[in-house]
């Protein structure tokens, strides 16, 4: 049961990566298959280009034949006197009865049909064209004179496993994902650093320094933690308009450097730090800033890493605020989520490209998570519940 759930959890990611390595035709195949496959081609004597291989059935045996010619028109001919006598011939093989200039006709079911000379078992019978299909000419690659005709669409191609990492370069070229990636990295790095800096000093002030007004400010901070971000979206937008930051990356960075929740978490962490060490350092003449940077911060690396990871994910994945503040046309300043949103419309018929884009957006946080997992999962839990 655990394994089943794990599969359910992980399946969309496997699907994403596998599909991002497929060729377009493979993505639209039904029934769907996980792994990317390519049709195999083979060089055959007498043909300039390599020919695609298909499975054909000869005397009950499956064999690999190459498709030499497609779109061969084949007619199903029938005898107007006795419709049970039929023959399948290529259109080019039969000649009009009575010559092309003076073709004879017959009336079948009240409709006038042209007649053609069709050889059946050595006899020539004038027949009419009852129906028409197209088939492909398949030849044995080892013995090109052995030919089989069958419908190409209903034949199964011979395929092998292969991958197409060029989808990734294609999507970069199509949507400028590289620029979006570096933008996102820049925004995320600055937001994480800014948040850490402000919440470390703020958390320290709340945890360790006594001053009038501290507790009321702290309660005020606590009260705002529950307020959802969408409350701010309209006034923040107008603020950005006022200071000329619309369409600018600064709007994605500066407002997010300050966090009540992060400050709260830092305070909760610092408050557990033994006071004696700090007092000893104070007696030695260290300033508060020295204590913070030289003693407390190095001792709090796990908590800081947790918060950094949290902030990283939040900044990396945010969508609504960039959507509001960065213009759709200004692709220079797009972050990954915005680029994906545009890509969704631009490449709506190529899932391989869209999912390659999605993979570019999803995989970096995954790597960060795997690196930071040692502290992360544990402390998410503890900080959440105790908070």
């Amino acid at each position, binding site marked *: 049961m655990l394994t089943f759930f794990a599969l359910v959890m992980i*399946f*969309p*990611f496997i699907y994403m990566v596998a599909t991002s390595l497929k060729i377009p035709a493979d993505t639209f195949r039904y029934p769907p298959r996980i792994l990317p496959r390519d049709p195999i081609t083979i060089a055959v004597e007498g043909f300039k280009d390599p020919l695609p291989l298909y499975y054909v059935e000869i005397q009950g045996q499956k064999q690999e034949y190459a498709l030499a010619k497609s779109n061969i028109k084949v007619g199903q001919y029938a005898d107007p006197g006795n419709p049970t006598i039929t023959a399948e011939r290529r259109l080019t093989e039969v000649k009009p009865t009575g010559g092309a200039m003076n073709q004879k006709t017959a009336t079948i079911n009240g409709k006038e049909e042209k007649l053609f000379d069709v050889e059946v078992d050595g006899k020539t019978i004038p027949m009419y064209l009852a129906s028409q299909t197209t088939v492909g000419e398949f030849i044995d690659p080892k013995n090109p004179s052995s030919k089989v005709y069958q419908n190409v669409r209903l034949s199964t191609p011979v395929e092998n496993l292969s991958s197409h990492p060029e989808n990734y370069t294609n999507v970069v070229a199509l949507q400028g994902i590289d620029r979006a990636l*570096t*933008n996102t990295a820049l925004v995320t790095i600055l937001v994480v650093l800014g948040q850490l800096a402000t919440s470390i000093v703020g958390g320290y002030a709340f945890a360790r320094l006594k001053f009038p007004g501290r507790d009321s400010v702290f309660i005020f*901070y606590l009260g705002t933690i*529950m307020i959802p971000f969408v409350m701010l979206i309209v*006034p923040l937008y107008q603020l950005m308009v006022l200071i*000329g930051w619309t369409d600018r990356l600064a709007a994605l960075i500066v407002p997010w450097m*300050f966090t009540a929740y992060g400050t709260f978490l830092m305070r909760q962490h610092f408050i557990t730090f033994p006071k004696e060490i700090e007092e000893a350092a104070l007696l030695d003449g260290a300033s508060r800033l020295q204590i913070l940077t030289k003693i407390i911060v190095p001792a709090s690396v796990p908590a800081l890493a947790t918060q950094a990871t949290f902030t990283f994910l939040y900044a990396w994945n945010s969508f609504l605020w960039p959507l509001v503040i960065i213009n759709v046309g200004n692709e220079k300043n797009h972050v990954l989520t915005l680029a994906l949103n545009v890509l969704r419309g631009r490449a709506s018929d190529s899932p391989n490209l869209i999912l390659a884009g999605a993979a570019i957006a999803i995989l970096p946080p995954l790597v960060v998570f795997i690196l930071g997992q040692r502290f992360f999962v544990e402390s998410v839990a503890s900080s959440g519940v105790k908070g």
Partner: protein
Amino acid sequence: MTEIPNQSNKNPARQNEFILRLLSLWRGLFSVLAASGAIAPWLGIFPNLRLWQGLLLTTTLGLASIFSAIAAAEIIKRRHKGRTISLFIDYLGLVACILIILQVGGVFIGIDALAEVFGRSILFLLAAFVGYLISAAGDYFESRSTTQKILRQVGKWIVLIGMVLFLLTANIFQGLLAIINKLANPMGITAIVSLIIFGLALWGMWREPTASALKAKTNHEQMLNGWLFLSPNLLGFLIFFAGPLLLSFYFSFTDSDAFNTPKWVGVENYAKILNITIKPLAAPDQLAREALDIQVYDEVGRIKFGNGGILFGAEDKLFWLALRNTLVYALFAVPLSVIPALLLSNILNSKLPGMKFFRAVYFIPSIAAIVGISLVWQWLYNATIGYINYFITIGVEFWNNLFNTGLIDPKINWVSDEKTALLAIIIIAAWQTMGFNTVLFLAGLQNIPGELYEAATVDGAGPWDKFWRITLPMLAPTTFYVVSTTTIQAMQVFEQVFILMNPPEGPNNSTITLVLYLYRSGFQNFKQGYASALAWVLFIVIFGLTLIQFQNQRKNSLYE
């Protein structure tokens, strides 16, 4: 001989006296300047200033002027209060100057230029980071001091070279030149000069001799330190959170459209949102226009019973549809992501090997970008080639073969059918948040003392009894936390809908959500005043739901 120490004692004292006088003079001067600044907006010098901006400026500068005057008096009386106020005002002035310089110098906007070359320079930044890791790795070799030393040295050099190359590739000199260029105007120079003055005033006030002359004590120092440490956070919080929050409240009573001066409209926005009507129906399928005043109301929905029914109409039909969809979404998404998480965490809590691996795997969906996730699911949901329908087909065939029934493969058009569109979103949400909740529950489980279970085993309780009688009650605080955060999140659903649905509101408005509607009103129709009112209504709904859960939890915990 005796004169020299005397003089050196006397000189600093006199110097100190001089500085103090200068400082009180500065306070007086500042008070006058601030007062004139406070009056300036009302003399028509700045025609572009909006009313609230003028009010803000006057209030700030007026307060600064008054406090500065008080501080001047206090400094003359040699009281510490004067120092405190002085430091506060000068510090705020300094910060304001720095911000103005950064803004005028185009530093914030210059981030775009940095982004232009960041793709090139990020590699050097990474190199610097690797250097830092190397020097940090030195700490692991504390026993071998030479190794440690070498690692530290190498790391330091790599960091240094990486940073220098990073700055060079990021066109640091061009950037600095551009900033200096932009600052070379009256505004920029005034800001720089004021920056220097504020800086000097701060230094003069902070110095040890000034502090002792004004009778500073340890608790004074601690207070100043406290506010100083808190200030970056608090200022940012006020500018980018509390201020906008107030602004949002104001906007919700106006017809603001982001470009023109907003007009006060009172509670009109709220009245429009909440204006509903309920009418009886003469027949179940009676036309809405016969029952409603369609000049004002639109039909939201109807309940049919017997040969009549009830019709719900609202002035803003989309809001009520959005509210309905969001509530339905939360009603299903929350239990679907909480209950399986609770069960899973109980299984994972066993001390079997491999549990850490499973825990990590369950966690993965919650860290991936929702936008990316939604794109993946969009193709999974595809009606003809998607895996979801493929699995359903396989399942139906299997069932038919097994029980010889004739079930028909439904071939669901997940996202384009109004009956399943919301369900599709709910499934994604359950999938995505379940792992996170599982981890939270696991943490809660680990806090339950094992003795409780041992005692229960002695009393002959089965695993089911233990789950109901021990695990659930002991987990109540965790459950409350998980349920309320999941609900708050669910009420703000937006990204999935926006990406997955085309158009985002879904077929026949079946997936329009509150945040989506807010986004529509505020940023596509630019009715920002109305959108602000919607935001406050959303907040009240969320707050109400959380309050209900809180009450519930309190009531339940009484039985413990």
